[in-house]
């Protein structure tokens, strides 16, 4: 995971140097005077040697978490990204909660009534939704729920926690629906496996209430699903970047795409690094959540024990 951060940092440093032509020229346009370009070179530190540029880039990044002044906004890139972060975090958070809220009952019902209508539905729906671009689903939601039924706002954010939840409903549903098929599928398979385990037979034989048995089954099936979810975090973040654009949310995603059109590279560097950092942090949170569900991970047994059959230890 740390490796990702290192690779991304080196990558984004090199990217700017890989751009064909002169970054300063690119920013200022073709009509720029030579002294303007020299000035920009100096401002961006491009008049120094590559080695020196790299050490100063890493130095500032580690010391202040910044990648330099944004060219378009003329303020620190870090400050810009941080100012846009809350909206994106809200969106990711709401989406993650929705994914769980949709997937758990669906997978549980599908597994408990194998071959039933919910099970069929869970198998067929992904075939259709797989080819649906997230942004298009978002637009269709706007058309249905905001324009026609007028239940939710067309876009933007509203003040207050309730206003925020209200404005996040459609965008987070859009992102969540793209994620659920994978989660439901793997969770269903996992629940079926656990249902066949010895301990469930024992619990059944002991005439425990079905409700209690379900809780034990779910607990055992949840961990692998959570690990899979952890692997899909980058998709969640990627989806957020795009869906923000559909709903006119002023988050990191809309900042990114506007930074590209104006070729604001310190800002792009900052966004890339902070997104990678976000993915790493969320993965760590997922790992910790996994530990709370499964005491074998918490107890430091981890590794080998985690891969063994989950039967009988809940």
């Amino acid at each position, binding site marked *: 995971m740390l490796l990702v951060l290192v690779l991304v940092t080196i990558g984004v440093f090199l990217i700017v140097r890989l751009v064909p032509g002169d970054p300063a020229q690119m920013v200022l346009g073709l009509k720029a005077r030579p002294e303007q370009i020299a000035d920009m070179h100096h401002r961006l530190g491009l008049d120094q040697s590559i080695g020196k540029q790299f050490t100063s880039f890493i130095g500032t990044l580690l010391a202040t978490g910044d990648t330099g002044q944004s060219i378009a906004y003329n303020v620190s890139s870090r400050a810009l990204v941080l100012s846009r972060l809350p909206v994106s975090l809200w969106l990711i958070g709401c989406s993650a909660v929705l994914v769980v809220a949709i997937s758990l009952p669906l997978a549980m019902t599908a597994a408990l009534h194998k071959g039933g209508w919910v099970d069929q539905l869970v198998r067929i729906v992904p075939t259709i939704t797989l080819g649906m671009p997230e942004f298009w689903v978002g637009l269709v939601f706007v058309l249905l729920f905001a324009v026609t039924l007028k239940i939710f706002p067309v876009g933007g954010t509203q003040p207050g926690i309730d206003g925020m939840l209200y404005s996040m409903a459609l965008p987070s549903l859009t992102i969540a629906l793209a994620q659920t098929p994978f989660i439901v599928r793997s969770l269903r398979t996992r629940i079926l496996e656990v249902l066949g385990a010895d301990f469930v037979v024992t619990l059944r034989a002991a005439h425990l209430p079905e409700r209690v048995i379900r809780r034990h089954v779910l607990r055992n099936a949840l961990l692998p699903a959570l690990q899979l979810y952890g692997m899909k975090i980058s998709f969640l973040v990627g989806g957020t*970047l795009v869906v923000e654009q559909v709903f006119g949310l002023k988050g990191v995603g809309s900042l990114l795409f506007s930074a590209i059109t104006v070729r604001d590279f310190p800002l792009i560097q900052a966004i890339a690094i902070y997104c*990678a950092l976000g993915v790493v942090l969320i993965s760590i949170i997922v790992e910790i959540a996994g530990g709370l569900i499964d005491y074998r991970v918490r107890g430091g047994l981890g590794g080998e024990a985690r891969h063994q059959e989950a039967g009988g230890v809940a």
Partner: protein
Amino acid sequence: MKRLHLPRTLAAGVALLAAIVLAVLIIPLLSPYDPTAEDISSMLQPPSFVHPFGTDQLGRDLLVRVAAAGRVDLALMVGVELLPFIIGTAAGLIAGYYGGWPNRIITLLSDALIAFPFYLLVAVVAFVTGTGVTGIFLTFLIMGWIIFARTVKGATASLAGEEWVESARVMGFSDTSILLRQMLPNVFSQAVIVLVSDMVALLVAIVTLGYLGLGVTPPTPDWGTMIADGQSFLATRWWVSTLPGTAVVLVGIALALIGDGLNDARRQV
């Protein structure tokens, strides 16, 4: 020998895809309209007999535009996927067969790349190459091979442990010949199944890039830019955005059905 019956999903998928490809090829030939010809006098008209899909904000016929965009996007989908497919399969064969450091490098690279949000990479690549087809090619060259390498690696590794591979080696077959003549045919079907489902993801990505203004550049018609065009009139002119999107969804369904069908067919054998 028992006659293999074609899974119904496969038949349905192939039929749907064939219908789409045929429509995309024929409609521009038969239509009286040019996909890029603007006609301000017939702007944003709803679907009718004259314009079955309506017209867009520049008065262009949407039916012929959806078809023309289909030509562009479908060709791009197949063209872009080819190289990652070959590279990924080759890398997977090598890593699965030899293990050791080729295996470690591939695992490391794929772990690192998978943790990086795809659309962020796209944005960064688009920054370097400028918008357009080059960026799409490059991004998929970087990202696309991983899924094939992973699948093929797993399949090859499990084959490599089998006795017939060992005996082939003892009989003096070279590694290259074992890899190409024995391993490849065995793992190829799995790679193709992954290819089909990955193409759906690729098409979605191409269209999304178009929507974000980072993909196919106008005036070349593309489903993504068409959907973006319609976004500002979504409330009153629903057809401009929804119809090109439906085309994407239909291709997705066709490919998903083919993928499911191939999977079933493989299990039958």
